[in-house]
């Protein structure tokens, strides 16, 4: 300690007081504006996510203590050890202390080791995959659309495919609350990532390998819908690759699966004879034709063949010639499948036919005369 009492000039006192006021005001705003709450993850909705959320809180507590301690020491040094006019002699030239070095090596090592063990415990439950999950679904992520194949409990046979990813369009990943759902992930093209913020979880969808994970949504969450989206850059339509998770009561879920399975078994009615369908193919994320033409005022159909690999979905929508205003919206068709889309009559003019999944690559001109 210095032998002579230090005199603080009034300006220094004022500066310190100002700093204290600024820091206090900042903290007040931080809490009042809800920023402290914003430093925690969104509300968890699965049993796994609750554990992640709790782990986050523990780490946040440790982080806050370390942050306040270290920033406090820095600010204290700045305020307390400023050089003053009377400081002509050198301060004590201390080169170090082995005792201190050992202390601040051992204590942080112990702290991170505890955090590591806690993380590992949580990981073992969050990442666990059971042999007999209640529900098995395969998520297929292709540029730039999600599809969900519902499988039999043994995971071997496909019951039906939900190819509409958003709830607003009548689709989504429909799952039961309170049951254990196993999701397997496959990609036909590039790397994607299955991410639902409310699950506090994501898992990459790698081409050439299958990733699996499980989740159990809280029983109280039936009726809720959560947005999810691709979290690994997958190209030009990356941000559009969104989907909804639709939570149903187990009984409603069973009815849903039954209904959709039955619908998938029905063979489509043969087309009325006499109606002509235009031919259109897709391969390598391109239509084989850039121009189509039909007669004005007459309903028409397009027989569409998707020759891309399974998981890579396309459709043929009709839009205004500006390419954005949608006139007739059609469901997507998976790679390797063909379909006949029926369209209502159009007035004479020029329109755009376009794939809603790949609008940048796949469009053409539809002439109606």
């Amino acid at each position: 300690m210095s032998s002579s009492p230090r005199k603080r000039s009034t300006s220094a006192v004022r500066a310190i007081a100002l700093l204290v006021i600024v820091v206090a005001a900042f903290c007040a705003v931080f809490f009042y504006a809800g920023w402290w709450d914003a430093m925690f993850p969104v509300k968890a909705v699965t049993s796994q996510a609750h554990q992640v959320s709790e782990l986050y809180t523990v780490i946040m507590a440790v982080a806050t203590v370390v942050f306040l301690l270290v920033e406090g020491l820095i600010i204290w040094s700045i305020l307390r050890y400023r050089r003053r006019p009377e400081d002509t002699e050198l301060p004590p030239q201390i080169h170090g202390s082995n005792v201190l070095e050992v202390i601040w090596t051992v204590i942080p090592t112990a702290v991170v080791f505890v955090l590591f063990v806690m993380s590992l415990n949580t990981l073992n439950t969050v990442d666990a995959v059971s042999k007999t999950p209640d529900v098995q679904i395969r998520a297929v992520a292709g540029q730039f659309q999600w599809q969900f194949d519902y499988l039999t409990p043994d995971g071997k046979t496909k019951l039906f495919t939900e190819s509409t990813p958003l709830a607003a369009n009548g689709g989504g990943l429909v799952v039961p609350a309170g049951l254990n759902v196993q999701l397997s992930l496959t990609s036909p093209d590039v790397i994607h990532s299955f991410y639902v913020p409310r699950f506090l979880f994501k898992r990459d969808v790698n081409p050439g390998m299958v990733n699996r994970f499980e989740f159990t949504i809280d029983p109280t969450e039936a009726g809720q819908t959560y947005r999810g989206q691709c979290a690994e850059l997958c190209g030009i339509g990356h941000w559009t690759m969104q989907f909804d998770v639709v939570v149903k009561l187990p009984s409603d879920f069973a009815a849903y699966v039954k209904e959709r399975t039955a619908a998938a078994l029905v063979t489509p009615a043969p087309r009325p004879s006499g109606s002509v369908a235009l031919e259109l193919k897709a391969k390598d994320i391109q239509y084989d034709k850039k121009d189509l033409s039909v007669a004005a005022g007459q309903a028409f159909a397009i027989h569409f063949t998707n020759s891309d690999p399974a998981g890579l979905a396309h459709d043929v929508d009709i839009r205004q010639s500006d390419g954005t205003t949608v006139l007739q919206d059609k469901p997507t068709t998976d790679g390797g499948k063909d379909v006949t889309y029926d369209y209502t009559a159009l007035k004479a003019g020029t329109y755009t036919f376009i794939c809603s999944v790949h609008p940048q690559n796949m469009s053409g001109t539809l002439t109606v005369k």
Partner: protein
Amino acid sequence: MATTTIAPATASTYRGGLYEWLTTTDHKKIGIMYIISSFIFFLIGGLLALGVRTELAQPGLQFVSNEGIYNQLFTMHATVMIFLFVIPMLAGFGNYVVPLMIGAPDMAFPRINALSLWLLPLGGILLLSSFLLGGGAQAGWTSYPPLSEDRPLGSTGYGQDLWIVSLILIGTSSILGSINFLVTIFKMRAPGMTLFRMPILVWTVLVTSVLVLMATPVITSALMMLFIDRNYGGHFFDPATGGSAVLYQNIFWFYSHPAVYVMILPAMGMISEILPVFSRKPLFGYKAFIFATAAIGALGFSVWAHHMFTTGAVFLPFFSLMTFLIAVPTGVKFFNWISTMWRGQLTFSTPMIFALGFLTMFLIGGINGAFSASVPVDFALHDTYWVVAHLHYVLFGGSVMGVFAGLYYWFPKMFGRMLDETLGKVQFIIMFIGLNLTFFPMHMVGLAGMPRRIADYANSGWTDLNLLATIGSFTIAVSMLPFIWNVFVSLRSGKIAGDNPWEANTLEWATSSPPPPYNFDHLPEIRSERPLFDLRHGKTGH
């Protein structure tokens, strides 16, 4: 007996200004050109970032005409900032300062040094030329295949190939530079300059050079394989034809994680030079600091897969433990820095202000990194804006703060004139506010579920935070104006610096400002890591 006279080097061999700079092998001129080139790329990378932030200010696509251009913006922003700004900027400081600090007349291989320098603008021009040749790379700076392969909706066109070629050129520059540093440090130290008397900055450059030498050839191999895949029908990384996409990630991060330490260790070294000088004390725990630096370097090679926790293809517990452990030597450094200031006599010149900025901000980048070391938490945070916040607190709050501390500190040595203190402090205040305004809200928007690298969003809860970050990014841009003005004014009319304006203790301050081409007329005795302190105070200070 005949007398042999050797004609002294005189003004007759002096070469004119521009020609001299273009052909020089003087490490000081090369260092300055490294720094100028890096700063220009810093401004270019900054403009690209402003493009990204402008697009994200509001939902909807307003600024860029399509997502492809957006993807180019952030890909090129990161590539330019990492490979053409941070890494060469720190190499530039190393080039200028290391020979002076160890009392050497130049780098060991002056011509190779010039080659390392000139490969950089070549690589940079190749990279940026892609904008004129059909568009830049757009698969992210990580360029994961199959997205970076030549395939529909992948990376067709020249942009990705130019990216690969320019990175190989820049990598070659790094490798040559690191060999040069190692030989210089091991072979060209002045008498008395033992390894454990070297300034910490020299130690950090040494460890960094080892990292570069061991890691850069590995990423070069990944880039070569990707180039073969794209142009010569290879199938290394395409699963459709038997390759492995995850293999690329392993090779890529085996380089790119150590590269993070390449981007921060020399900045830590600079801080460790500046804090003691402006505290009038020696660095606390000199040897502990060296061991911590070596430990970070060694552990840095065993944590690469923490970038791949969500792939489902790596052994999670090992990489989690190693990542947690690397917090320990970083913590040791923090406590040593604070103890250096403890009971010192602190003065707040601009280099010290930026050094304190480094301490306060890099701390945040260290702490929020520990969240991602916990695998389950990383499952939630990976590839969200949280990670963007984390890496910018490390690279901007850490490296950039360190770079400006270094610029203000060594500018007087380089040019013989001081930078203006008032303008420096104005720059610091604007930059400090801008940095926090830009990157702190990214924690929150990441926790709210916003993934990185998306061109647009429709979630109303993300809008305000994004707008705040955009305002912050323009604030950072504004903070560059006082700096540029400061440099132009101070070069002409700044206060004359003298040999040692900061009362510093390392050898570069023992020669004139700027130093002569051969660096030293004579060297003081070197008996500790602070030879100039010993000269001023004798042994009494110890």
